[in-house]
């Protein structure tokens, strides 16, 4: 499907450890159009962060290694791309927002210097001009009296403010895509909402695509247009947001949605919180068939025999479960 902004096909990323190779990402397909917000949801260890970081090759190789698959960015495959090419893309075309604002900024430089550094890396402008650009970005992300605070150091900002700085830095070169790796996990609830609103506002104003990595279904509902659900290094379901919440096809997605504590039901319902029994399979030697089979209520012999392909059973809806139609 040419023309898509980002198109990842069959991506496999394994990590070498003392006990053998960990199949962290084992055949992931993911694609994204300009201006679209795609959310990738899954528990920790499902391979979502590795997938995201591999796009910009931010994982340490070794011990990590891209075993297979391609990452097409506007048609160009980044997997074989040389480091110089990757550097042009980083922050200029694809921005990245990290999870831990407290430690993601360099403590010894002012926030202005760090943003200016990004800007001057990709544009030939003077140091003064870059600092002005930094102040602009800070005010864009609603940091009060930005022109003064641009000279402050990271430790003089709160967690929420620092995440705003990170966003300002990521957007400083007008990238076409922003990858946000659990941007709100480290923040408390009230700040999370502000950050998500800011992200959406930035999308309207600058029109960039957003790849949002999260494990919170609530965040998905708030921001994403389309959702990909990942489990044990593989994509198990892909669907538009509303469709996913209305009619989750894959048993795992259903389990996820059922286990969300519901405020909208009346107190009288007295329903116990639901949890999915069993644990995630070892990625050292992943099971043959469907990786969710061990915990899936509907699992049958066939499920364990072969890995279920990711099938498009309706326009824009894919699921990796051979009994999806039956149990829908």
């Amino acid at each position, binding site marked *: 499907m040419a023309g898509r902004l980002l198109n990842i096909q069959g991506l496999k990323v394994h990590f070498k450890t003392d006990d053998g190779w960990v199949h962290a990402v084992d055949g992931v397909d993911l694609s994204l159009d300009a201006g679209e917000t795609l959310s990738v949801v899954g*528990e920790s260890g499902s391979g979502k962060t590795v997938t995201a970081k591999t796009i910009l090759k931010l994982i340490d190789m070794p011990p990590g290694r891209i075993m297979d698959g391609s990452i097409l960015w506007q048609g160009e495959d980044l997997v074989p791309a040389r480091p110089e090419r990757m550097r042009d893309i980083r922050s200029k075309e694809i921005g990245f927002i990290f999870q831990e604002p407290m430690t993601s900024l360099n403590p010894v430089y002012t926030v202005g210097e760090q943003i200016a550094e990004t800007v001057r890396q990709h544009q030939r402008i003077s140091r003064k001009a870059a600092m002005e650009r930094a102040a602009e970005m800070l005010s864009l992300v609603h940091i009060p009296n930005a022109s003064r605070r641009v000279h402050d150091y990271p430790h003089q900002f709160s967690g929420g403010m620092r995440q705003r700085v990170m966003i300002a830095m990521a957007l400083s070169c007008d990238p076409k895509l922003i990858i946000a790796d659990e941007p709100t996990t480290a923040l408390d609830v009230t700040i999370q909402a502000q950050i998500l609103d800011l992200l959406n506002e930035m999308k309207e104003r600058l029109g960039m695509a957003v790849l949002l990595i999260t494990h*919170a279904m609530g965040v998905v509902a708030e921001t994403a247009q389309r959702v990909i659900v990942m489990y044990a290094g593989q994509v198990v379901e892909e669907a538009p947001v509303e469709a996913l919440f209305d009619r989750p096809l894959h048993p795992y997605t259903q389990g996820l949605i059922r286990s969300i*504590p519901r405020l909208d039901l009346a107190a009288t319902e007295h329903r116990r919180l639901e949890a999915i029994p069993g644990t995630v399979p070892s990625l050292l030697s992943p099971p043959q068939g469907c990786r969710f089979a061990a915990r899936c209520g509907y699992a049958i012999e066939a499920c364990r025999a072969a890995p279920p392909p990711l099938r498009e059973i309706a326009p824009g809806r894919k699921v990796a479960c051979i009994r999806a139609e039956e149990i829908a």
Partner: protein
Amino acid sequence: MAGSIPASAIASPAAAARPRIGPWREAWRRFRKHRLAVASAVVLGTIILAVLIGPLFWSLPIDEIDFTARLEGPSLAHPLGTDDLGQDLLARILYGGRISLAVGFAAMSVAVSVGVLVGAIAGMAGGRLDAALMWLTDLFLSLPQLPLLLLIIYLFRDALTGVVGQELGVFILIVTVIGAFNWMQVARLVRAQFFSLREKEFVEAARALGASRARLVWRHILPNALGPVIVAATIDVAAAIIAESTLSFLGLGFPPDIPTWGRLLFDAKDNLDFAPHWALFPGLAIFLTVVSINFVGDGLRDALDPRRVQ
């Protein structure tokens, strides 16, 4: 946002598959990975073993003067050669090694324990007590060791030898004296560690759970400060062995007829160009001991400090 799934609810089963590994077994497994550290542990072990039980097998007396066999190179009769009085160097190195190593380790443990104590108190207490302790550290750092050594040994030597006999008396004296001059680095390291660790979340968490100050220090902060202390301790052993030889250089150390490695090296330095074996073997003994202690220390630090290893 409501609806975030606590990850622990669905704990990753991966760890469950393998047998449950205790922290010490884990530390040993990581230590084994550090090949040089293992090799050094073996070398150190052989040296200590040789020094302890060697004299049982190699029974030549240490001070048998034999003028016919002066300054002989290594031979069958004298595997490590002889000195200018024809005394057998292997026997002397084995005998001297016992003292040098004992002085090294004992002085190091004195230095480290004093250092950790001072560092911990300064680190935990802070404020005026910290300033006073740091002033004391600066004071000891700037005092020249030699006059103090001269005085302390000269003041206490006769009193101590009267009580516990000559060799033990001198041993205790030298260990305390060397120890008393090497604790400052450890104290400063431990204090720095305490300052940085005190702010860490896990310490506040422990304090929130009602841990007493002593427990905090002993169970939480100290184990984390272990890394640099081990490194400092290994350096201290080397410094102690060298300090002992400087003492014998000044006639302050053990009586002249006790062949510690430092004294052997000192006696041999004038014959280096004609009888190199006389200086090389004790020098080698000191070097091998010190380098193996350092490697073992490095291995220990990697094993005990989970963050460090990839």
